């Protein structure tokens, strides 16, 4: 998904492609105890000064870090992630399912069984058929997540008609068995089952946005109320039984979680300093207050680096960026250290797709800063003086990045101007082929910790679509496509697979469809009464409010 604070949902496109595979059957079992929930550490209320990035509180619709940040303790998928700090947080564990799925020898069939006794917050039992209904509901509500399920047998047909059912999902309510058949093996399918889009809601849930009339939920918390752009209130789910989950899902320490939606960073910060709120949720500490906050509250700040890459896409179908020399020139011309300062210094420069938090990351520096070479490449390309429109949205610090890029493009011989559009429509605008966006700002925060979430979603030429396109560069390289497709079938990310992904990263950057420039760092700031010995920052969902303690 795109940057936490600055995005609305971006549709992912179906088509998990790839050839048939003959993978051996993989059965992974059991639950692992990872919960950092703390019995006896419960307290009354945890208040959060969150930003305006929450798009929906409907698991079928939300596609922002903020939305998922609220819901990951509300709507539990069949599988989920350990609630722990560090890389171990990427470990998939069973949530509503009894164990990790049994995968058939051909890698195409996943079988799971629901835990016994799991109930929704309204007291009704969770049924296996609810899972199927949930995926079908995703299609009915035009969920931005339907692209994740396109590899399920029958999903493509269901996407067209939205009638009948998805034949590839079969369920048995009496046994709780869920069987999912895929058209092709898919190495990241367990990650996809762990997304909020796959979190079951009752089959009778209306196929329309339920943000303000929350659907019954399965997690330790339930949504009590949601007033958009004002407040979200979560309370304990009376029908949640943590003992059913073998420690994979925390009990939750706060009895109640209140999210106050605050638009201004300074106001939000002041609320946390004064104790009106306990956590500065998703707001950056304004750069000119960072030093004083650090000085006064050094123990209440945490710095973290979620898996993200900020980049400039260059549309390979549109001149002048259909010319490799121009794309390389842009990569040589941008000084990534300068862009780090544009973002207040809280970032690391990068020249590649994968962020350094990935095991597949192998640092490469193919484009050291060299303006002379950039000018030379532009002259060789024959595109000197060509008009270029640099696209960006209007929120946060991001417009500064394209202001810099525009200046750089003008300095190397192109004739650039900036085009800023409202953040609410930016991603759909540049994702529409009719726009023919030449070059612009983009970022990516992982949907799940797997290289496929980067290369397959963002750079696989076979997934380019007319609208809602995530491959803004329209990068379509046969060699890269085939490598992605081959790696998609790999059931396990071992050292060999990781090395191959690193090679894909290098090969992509040789073609320069992007000019990646930094991996951003963020801060979490807490009121002085919050006990940060319980602090958990998850690799995907970031701060885990369920496990926090108070002094």
């Amino acid at each position, binding site marked *: 998904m795109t940057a936490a604070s600055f995005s609305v949902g971006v549709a992912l496109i179906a088509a998990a492609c790839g050839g048939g595979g003959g993978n051996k059957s993989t059965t992974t079992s059991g639950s692992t105890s990872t919960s950092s929930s703390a019995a006896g550490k419960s307290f009354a209320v945890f208040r959060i000064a969150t930003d305006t990035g929450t798009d929906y509180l409907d698991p079928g619709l939300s596609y922002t870090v903020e939305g998922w940040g609220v819901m990951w303790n509300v709507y539990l998928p069949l599988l989920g992630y350990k609630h722990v700090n560090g890389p171990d947080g990427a470990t998939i564990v069973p949530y509503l399912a009894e164990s990790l799925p049994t995968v058939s020898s051909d890698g195409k069939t996943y079988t799971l069984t629901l835990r016994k006794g799991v109930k929704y917050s309204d007291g009704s039992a969770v049924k296996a058929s609810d899972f199927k209904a949930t995926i079908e509901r995703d299609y009915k509500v035009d969920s931005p997540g339907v692209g994740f399920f396109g590899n399920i047998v029958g999903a493509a047909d269901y996407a067209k008609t939205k009638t009948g059912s998805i034949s590839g999902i079969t369920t048995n309510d009496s046994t709780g068995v869920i069987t999912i058949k895929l058209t092709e093996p898919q190495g990241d399918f367990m990650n996809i089952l762990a997304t909020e889009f796959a979190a079951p809601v009752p089959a009778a849930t209306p196929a329309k946005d339920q943000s303000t009339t929350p659907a019954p939920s399965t997690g330790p918390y339930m949504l009590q109320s949601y007033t958009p752009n004002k407040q979200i209130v979560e309370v304990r789910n009376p029908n949640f039984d943590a003992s059913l989950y073998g420690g994979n899902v925390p009990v939750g320490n706060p009895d109640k979680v209140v999210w106050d939606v605050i638009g201004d*960073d*300074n106001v939000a910060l002041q609320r946390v300093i004064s104790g009106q709120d306990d956590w500065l949720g998703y707001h950056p500490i*304004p*750069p*000119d*207050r*960072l*030093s004083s906050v*650090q000085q006064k509250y050094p123990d209440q*700040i945490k*710095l973290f680096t979620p898996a993200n890459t900020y980049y400039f896409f260059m549309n390979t179908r549109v001149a002048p960026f259909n010319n490799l020399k121009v794309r390389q020139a842009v990569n040589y011309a941008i*000084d990534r*250290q*300068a862009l*780090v*300062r*544009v*973002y*207040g*210094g*809280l*970032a690391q420069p990068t020249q590649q797709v994968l962020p350094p938090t990935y095991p597949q990351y192998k640092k490469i520096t193919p484009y050291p800063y060299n303006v002379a070479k950039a000018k030379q490449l532009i002259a060789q390309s024959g595109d000197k003086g060509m008009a270029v429109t640099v696209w960006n949205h*209007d929120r946060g*610090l991001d*417009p*500064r990045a394209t*202001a*810099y890029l*525009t*200046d*750089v493009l003008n300095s190397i011989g192109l004739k650039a*101007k*900036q*085009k*800023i*559009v*409202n953040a609410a*429509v930016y991603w759909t*605008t540049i994702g529409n082929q009719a726009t023919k966006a030449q070059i612009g700002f983009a970022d990516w925060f992982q949907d799940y910790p797997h290289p496929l979430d980067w290369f397959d979603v963002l750079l696989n030429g076979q997934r380019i679509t007319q609208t809602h396109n995530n491959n803004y560069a329209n990068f379509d390289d046969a060699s890269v496509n085939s490598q992605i497709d081959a790696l998609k079938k790999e059931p396990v990310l071992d050292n060999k697979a990781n090395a191959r992904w690193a090679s894909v990263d290098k090969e992509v950057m040789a073609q320069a469809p992007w000019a990646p420039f930094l991996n951003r*760092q963020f*801060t979490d700031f807490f009121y002085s009464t919050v006990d940060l010995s319980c602090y958990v920052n998850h690799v995907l969902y970031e701060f885990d409010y369920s496990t926090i303690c108070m002094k």
Partner: protein
Amino acid sequence: MAERVTESEFTLDTAAELAAIDEPSAIRGRSPWFLAWRRLRRNYVAFFFLGLFIIVVVACMLAPVYAKHVAHTGPNTNHILETVKVNGKETPVVSPGGIIKGKLVASIPIGPTWFSGGGRFVLGADQNGRDVAVRLLYGGRTSLFVGIISSLICVFFAVILALVAAYYGGWGDFVITRFFDLMYAFPVILLGIALGSALAIDGFHHFGINIQSGSIWIPTLVISYVLVPYVGRPLRGQVLSLREKEFIEASIAQGASPFRVMFVELLPNIASSVLVFFTLIIANNIILESALSFLGAGVQPPTASWGTQIADGQQLIVTRPWLSLAPGLAIVITVLSLNIFGDGLRDALDPRAKVKVSH
């Protein structure tokens, strides 16, 4: 015999009073414009602020000269990693940030050098390392352009609509006044944001008019459009009143065409109000442009305008207040100048008039 009119009572000056105090031999015809000028020239406060406004305009016109010969940079040129010598000491234009000596430090741009940097970054730099003083002057050009041109367009259409509505009456009047009412129903800022945002993506390509998105003509035309009823409605009222006067009836009786009546008889009689409206609405439009640009629906970055500069500076309001203060002060000075001069002009042209622009 009439008492001599004091300086402070100039607004009550009338032709009769002037005639009374002059020597009988000096009595001669005085045009309304002459009388207005006579009143205006004695309003030193208005003239002071007119002078101030002219200084602002000239300073903004000289922006390229300042940029080239003093600051040695352009309004959109980034100097993020450069240093500038301030009082003999090399200082980074934007300081490095990150974890420095175990502490979290944010990158902060240089503050005002007040000419101790050899003319560079006199008012400091923004987060992109751009010279604030240079951008302030270029921003002034943008804001003044939008303010003045949008006022011209707005007043032009408001006058036409007011004349047509009041002269013809009937259905024409009904349609035009309902249009005014409709526009009145929307708060100006809200309507400006809606139109500005909608046109920001694709621009305007209708009726043979092609304006690209990001063009300065988008906010100019949006502001012109949203303020038409605020000028047109009071002018219509004045024309309605004049329409019933004998000189208009006489003109019509003599066979004057509607065009002649409207533009030769009626228009000169509302000219003073139009002039005052024009002056006052420039100030109003500069504020509106700044507000829309601040909210992202006006002038598009990286083009400098006072509104976009205030928006750029708000993240650094504590440590680098000049980023926002400088354009804010520029707006205050310009708008105050225009408003006080406009009030003086109104008093001079028609002391009894209650012309004002409010929304």
